[in-house]
Structure formats: C-alpha cells, structure tokens
C-alpha cells in the first residue's frame, strides 16, 4: 500500500516534470498513479492527512481531462506552462481534500488560486481564443476581457475568500490546535469568514463574475476548474467544516446559494458563448450545492459527483466544437459532442441514473433550476451538426456513461417536469441576461473606481506630507541661522564687549594716583565708623 503523502509528492513532482518537458505525459502518469493508489487503499501515514471521499472522484475526472487535453492542446503554444499549472491544480485539490492540518489545507486552497490564475494566462493576450465577451460597449464598460484581465479579476476576487479563510483557520487553530478533525464550535465571526471563503471560491453572489471571465483559459482548464477542482472547494469546505459553524450559517448558505442558483441559471440562458453558458451553469449548480450543503450534506455530496461528471464532459464536448470550428462561437457541434450535451443535460436534471441518485433527496425548487438547464443546453442542441470523429470524444463520453454503473437510482417522475424548460431554448436575446444582470459593471467600473479613488487619496495625502516635510528644510535653516546669530551675539558679548569693558576699567584704574586711593580709603573708613556710632547710639 502506498502512502497518500507519496502520491501527493508524485503529483507535484509530475507538475514540475511537465513544466520542464512540456509534454503532459507526467500528468497522465500522475493521474493513473493516484487513481491506482487510492483504489488499492492508499491512506495517510501521518496525522497531517485524512482520507477524503472525493479524492478518487477528482483523480478520475483529472485523468479523463488530461487525456482529452492531449488532443485539444495539440499544436498549442506554452505547453510547459499549461501542463505545469494543470499538475499544480490537481495536486493542490488533492492536498486540500485530504489535509487535516490547517496549514496544508491553506496551502491546497491557495494552490488552487494560483494554478487557476496561471492557467487563465495560458493564451497570449492577443490570441482570439483567450478572449471572453463580444466587445460591446455597454453599461460603461467594454465587454471584452483578454487573459491578463481575466486572470487579474480572478485572483483578486478569490483572494478575498482566501484571506477570510486564513483568518478563520488561524483563529480555529489557535483555539483548538492545528488539526481540523479536533476542532469544535466556531464563533459567529469565524463562521462568517468560512462562509465568505466558500462563497468567493464557489463563485456565489456577488463573487460570480470572475468565473465567467476565467473562460479565457483553454477549455480543458475550464473542464477541470468547474467540475472537480477550484469552485468545488467552496462547498467541500462547507462539508468539511459545516458541523462546526454557527446555527445561522445554514440559512445564509441557503439564501446565497439559492439566489445564485436562479440568477446564474438565468444568466446562462442569456449567454451566446457556449463556454460562458457552461460557466454560468456552474455558478448555478454550485449555488444549488451550497444551498443544501449545510442542511443535507449527503445530498450535496451526490450532487458534487453528478455535477462534476456532467460538467467536465459538457466542457470537453463544447471544447470539441471549439477545436473543430476554431471559434469561441461555434456554429455547429460534432455529433459526439451533441450526444454528450444531451447526456450531460439528462445527468444534471436527474434523469440519467447518477443524476437521479443525486437528485433523489433534492428539494423541489431545484426542478426549476433544472428547467433553466434544459433551456440553455437545449439551445446548443438546436445548433447544426458537423462530422468530426477525432477520438477526443472518448474521455468525455466515458465520464458520462461509466458513473451510471457505479452510482445509480431510478429518477423520480417529478424530475421530468424539468424537460418543459426546453421551450426556453427558443428564447431570443434578453439583454439583461446577456449582460449577466450587469454584475461585471461592479467589478470593472464600480470597484476599480472606488479603489482608484482610495489609492489616489493615499497618494495625495502621502505626497502632501512628504512635501511638507521637505518644505520644512528651510525651517531647519532658519533655526540654524537663529542659533548662529545667538552664538555670535554671545560670542561678541563675551569676547569683545566684556573684554573691552574690563580693559577700559583696568586702564582707568591703572591711570589713578596713590594719594587718591588713600583719600578714598580714609573716606570709606570714616563712613563705616560714622555708621557704627550712629547704630550704637540708636540702640
């Protein structure tokens, strides 16, 4: 049996090897090794790690995606960069899942941030495939984001969550010790910080838009980021720590999650870039999972699986179309991709066996979210079909088919109601949905304007004080001059004035004769005697 620690080291070593060799073979090897290790019972050999039920799932999805990437990224530039960060992404997610020590948890969590940032930068800024948006100028912003803008938006937004998580973890570690499994009740503030961390990572309102522009990354990255890593870390954090959080946390998670589920589902209906449709769909499903993660963890776990398989496959299918048509707005889809989109849709709404199992205990309102899903995915199914049978379809169809033999249930009839959402596939352009309720304006205009005002204020204040300090230099000169003047006056008084006075007195005294002294001395003696006599008579 291999130790889990060794598997993690191998995952990061593979990332380094792939960075240097730029081939991606180490990624495949790492995924196979990890999967084989876990399936043969690899476990932690130190107290720093704990087994995670998601570890196999993540390794399996990662394996499918790296195999797919070998087709998708053929001929692409910056392959070392791409494969290196993919490896870090995988290793970080596994570290986050299995960590029981708070610092390892933080490292895994931050590793996800940094890897997603790096992967968003894979395409060069001038490369059309790296852009997100249609270039329209509305709401005061330009709806076109190159990879460098997307990466910056992503890292700054998720860093809010990471900062909150560090403070929450640090506070708990200080109180209960370094091992998460030994922690007990979290206070209100710490609970709020944990929730903030989960919301930012899982792209919940209002942090949704970084996930949309993260579509600047190549499609395999999106497949990985949306299905089993990064955003999933949000609800998985809630599952890990849910039992510690304050009682009100479940209600807040429900409100934010449910709001995001509907809002992002509607946004997905308005998007015309298929990757953006799927991105909004991810936020929507993450909302659903977040909403129930604290109330029904078992259900949330199953939803994480089903959504992970479906979304990874959907991204790979859409990527297949992008790969074939060389366009971010593919006008036609390969047949295999369409089959996958149909199967993915059925898995998401709960009609395929794995989806049915996931939705078995789901609350009724999720059927409405499913109806939106049928609407936005149905639109893709309406597009024309092209013939392309490059074997990149194998991994994504495997992901949609195989899980149904492992996790299954019969679909409750009510779920079929979601298919009525198919009519939404015929909905025309709705500007407010297309513009994602103008949420990007918050991130591209309101927040930057406020922040710019803040730093400009700091700069102005700083410069003013700096100038005042430098302007005080003449004051120092004035003080120095005053001291010089005073010094000269004292100097003159002591060395010229006094000396001259003494010299003059001395010269005057020296010029007098002896009889004059005797006369003065006699006079003085007479006065003293007279005074003594007067005083004696008086008594």
């Amino acid at each position: 049996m291999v130790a889990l620690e060794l598997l993690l080291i191998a995952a990061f070593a593979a990332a380094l090897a792939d960075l240097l060799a730029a081939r991606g073979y180490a990624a495949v090897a790492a995924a196979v090794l990890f999967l084989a290790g876990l399936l043969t019972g690899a476990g932690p050999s130190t107290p720093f790690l704990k087994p995670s039920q998601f570890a196999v799932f993540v390794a399996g999805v990662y394996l499918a995606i790296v195999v797919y990437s070998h087709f998708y990224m053929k001929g692409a530039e910056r392959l070392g960069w791409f494969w290196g960060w993919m490896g870090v992404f995988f290793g970080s997610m596994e570290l986050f899942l299995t960590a029981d020590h708070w610092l390892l948890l933080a490292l895994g969590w931050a590793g996800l941030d940094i890897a997603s940032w790096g992967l968003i930068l894979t395409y060069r800024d001038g490369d059309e495939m790296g852009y997100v948006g249609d270039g329209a100028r509305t709401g005061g912003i330009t709806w076109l984001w190159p990879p460098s803008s997307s990466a910056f938006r992503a890292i700054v937004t998720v860093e809010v969550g990471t900062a909150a998580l560090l403070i929450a973890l640090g506070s708990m570690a200080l109180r209960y010790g370094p091992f998460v499994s030994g922690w007990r009740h979290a206070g209100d503030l710490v609970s709020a910080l944990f929730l903030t961390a989960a919301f930012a990572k899982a792209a919940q309102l209002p942090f949704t838009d970084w996930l949309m522009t993260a579509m600047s990354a190549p499609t395999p990255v999106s497949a990985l980021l949306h299905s089993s890593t990064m955003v999933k870390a949000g609800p998985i954090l809630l599952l890990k720590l849910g039992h510690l959080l304050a009682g009100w946390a479940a209600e807040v998670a429900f409100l934010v999650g449910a709001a995001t589920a509907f809002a992002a589902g509607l946004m997905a209906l308005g998007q015309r870039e298929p990757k953006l449709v799927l991105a909004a769909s991810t936020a929507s499903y993450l909302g659903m999972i977040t909403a129930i993660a604290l109330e029904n963890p078992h259900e949330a776990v199953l939803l994480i699986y089903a959504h992970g398989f479906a979304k990874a496959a959907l991204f790979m299918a859409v990527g297949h179309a992008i790969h074939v048509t060389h366009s971010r707005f593919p006008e036609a889809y390969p047949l295999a991709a369409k089959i996958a989109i149909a199967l993915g849709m059925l898995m998401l709404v709960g009609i395929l066996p794995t989806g049915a199992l996931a939705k078995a205990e789901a609350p009724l309102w999720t059927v409405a979210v499913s109806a939106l899903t049928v609407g936005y995915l149905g639109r893709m199914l309406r597009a024309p079909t092209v013939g392309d049978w490059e074997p990149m379809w194998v991994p994504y169809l495997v992901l949609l088919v195989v899980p149904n033999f492992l996790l299954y249930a019969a679909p409750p009839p009510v779920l079929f109601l979601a298919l009525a959402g198919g009519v939404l596939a015929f909905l025309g352009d709705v500007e407010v949905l297309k513009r994602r309720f103008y949420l990007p304006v918050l991130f591209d205009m309101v927040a930057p304007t406020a922040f710019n005002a803040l730093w400009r204020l700091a700069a102005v204040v700083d410069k003013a004080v700096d100038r005042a300090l430098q302007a005080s230099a003449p004051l120092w000169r004035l003080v120095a001059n005053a001291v010089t003047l005073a010094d000269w006056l004292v100097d003159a008084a002591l060395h010229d004035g006094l000396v001259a006075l003494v010299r003059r007195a001395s010269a005057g005294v020296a010029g007098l004769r002896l009889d004059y002294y005797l006369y003065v001395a006699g006079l003085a003696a007479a006065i003293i005697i007279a005074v003594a006599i007067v005083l004696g008579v008086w008594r």
Partner: protein
Amino acid sequence: MYNVFLLAVALSGVVAVAALRLGLPAALASMAAMFLFLIPGKETLGVLPYVGEVSVAVDYYKLPFLAVSVVLGLVVAFYSPPYLRHLGAPRWYYGVHAFYVLSFLFIILFENLIFVFLALELSIITSFLLIWYFGYGNRRFVALLYFIWAQVGSILFLIGVAISGTFAADVFKATGLASVLVLLGLLIKMGTAGVHFWLPYAHAEAPTPLSALLSPVHVGLMAYWIWRLRAEAGWPLETLFIYGLATAVYGSLLVFRETDFKRALADSTVANMGLLVAAASIKDVEVSYAATALLFVGHAFAKAALFMLAGLYIVALHTRAIGEVRWDRHLLAAGVLGFVALAGLFGINLVGKAYVATGVPQALSAAALAVFALVSTAAYSFYLFNQMYRAGESRVEYPAEMYAAILASALAPYVLLVVLPLWLH
C-alpha cells in the same frame, strides 16, 4: 564560541578591508567567512563601565535572520558586477558591501542593546556611502534624507534603551518614555506608515544591488528586535498589530501610484513592514516568532529577486518603467515566482501570512481590516505583474550571472516551503 566569533570578525573584517582594494573576490571571501557567525552558542566578550556585559549569541531564533543576511549578501554580490560596470563603480564598492552585510550580522548577534545601536550605525554609514556615491537622481539629497531619518531612528532607540537602564536584551524592561522611544526608533528604521517618507526615496534611488539588501534585509531586521523585546517593553500589542495591518493597507495603496519599478517595490516594502510589525505583535510568542521569521525570510528573497530583476532591466533595457520592460520565458518565470511569493499566495510567505492571520482580534472591524490587508498586499503584486506581463514578450539580452542570482533568490521561498517541517518544529 568566543574564539569562533573573534575569528569570524577578524577574517571577515580583514578580508572586507582587503575588498576595498581587491573588489569582488575578496568581498565574496569575506561574506563566506561570515558563515562562521552562524555557529550556535553564547559568549561574553567583556564587561564595560556603564554599558555592562557585552555578549553575542546565536540561537534557533536568530539563525534565519543571520542566514538570510549572509546568503543574500553573497547572492547580491554575485549579481553585482555587470550592474556596477554599468554604473562605473570602483572596486571599493564591494568592500563597503561586505561591511554592510557584516553590520546586519552584528545587529542580530549582539545581546547588548548599546552594541546593537553601534551595529545600526555601521549599517547606516555603509549604506549612506553607497547611496551618496552611486545613487540615482538627486542622490546626495536622498542620501542625506536617508541618513537623517536613519539616525533619528537609531538615536531614539539608543535614548530609549539608555532611559530604560537595561541594556542586555535578556533583561530589557521599559516603561513610559523609554518604551515609546525604543518602539518609535525601531518603527522609523522599518519605515512603517507615518514614518515611512524616507523609504521610497532611499530604496528606489540607491544603486540596485544596495536596494536588494536595504529593502529585503536591513529594514526587516528590526522586526526581530520588536519580537525579542516585546515581553517587557510595555507595548500595547493589539494596537501594534492593528497598526501593522493599517500600514500594510497604506503601503499597498501607495504601490498603485508608481510607474517606476523600483519605487513600486519600495512602496511595497512599506506594506510588508506592516505585515512584519503585525507578525511581531501576535500575542502567542511562538506563533509570533514563526510569523515574523517566515515573513521576513520569504519577503527578503522575493523582494531581493524583484529588485535584482528591476536592476537587470536597468542594465539590459536602460529603463526603470515597469510598463516598458520586455520579457522572455526565463524572465517571466522569475517574475511569476517573485510576485507570487511577494503576494503571499504561495511559498513560505503564505504560511507567514497564515500565522499573521492567527493574531487577528475577534472583532468584525479587525477581521475586515485584516482581510483588506491580506487582499491588498496580494493585489498590488498581481497588479505589478500585470504591468510587466502586458509590456510584452520579446528577446532580451542580459548577463547570465544576473539572471542566475535572480532565479536563486526567487526560488528560495518555494524551496524553503518544502523543508519547512525541518525548520519550524
């Protein structure tokens, strides 16, 4: 220890004097001899009237500060020749550089605070000379500005120590004015918000190899003394922690005003000194030490790498504007490693930030400030990286030894993360 200390002083000192004539090889030899200072132990060198016992000590707590000083001193010296050729600097530069590095060791090694003051003076004089002769722009003005602020800082520290009447670090105890003066002196030397006005000038206009020591090492060493003296210094630690976070926010905001690579890095040092002050003020003394040491070491390597990168651009492209640089994949790698570590998003810097997070008081306003501080320190790093990244990719010719030094320094925070379990136990 006594013999080792004297041997180390004699060797490194004499060879540093020789370096004034012989240049780089002698300076490297002098700094190599400084590794002798890292041998643990404690020894009394003598007892002086009024000043009392003068001793030196090396322990687990001091080692990271000492080791980083020597290693970065060597790395930067190795980096310097192409830069100094570009500046037209004579050989004696290296001798002064070696003495400057020696002063770092003395600042940490001495247990007698009067002697710590003397070490501070040595560091000020050596760095002042290098700015005065080899700085940029209005270098004499900047050198004087730096000299006066640094003197004010170290003299306030000295007066505070003198008033306290306790000169040995182990028994240091201060109240009232002494307590305030010692802290104020150290904060001025660190350049925290309100007493930072000298720092952007000095660190940006110094010759870049000096900037790569001033900003990463020199100012950060004061954090050790804040941590060391805090037990009986009578400082309000929670207020100091909040002040540190506020400095981190303020320094981060200042970065956004800059277009000059070196000035941006200098402003970023103000932010990082804020984090270090917060780290040194965490209530739990061991956690506080871990935070201080990790942030100091991580910041030192990342900041030195980035200053050296800025210097490489000065030599290779004759520009200091971050928006005008160019990069090939090697320079991009160095930039990514340096900026990610500086952001505290990975490497030991992340662990340091995590430890700082443990000290956040349980109040909503404090937590909000802490989130803002942690986010803003990360945001400016990525903002600067974006400036560099958008400037564009192209072929750049640069000396290999400069790049080797940058890469070694930029990799250090990540390599140290791997060996962290061996370090912190």
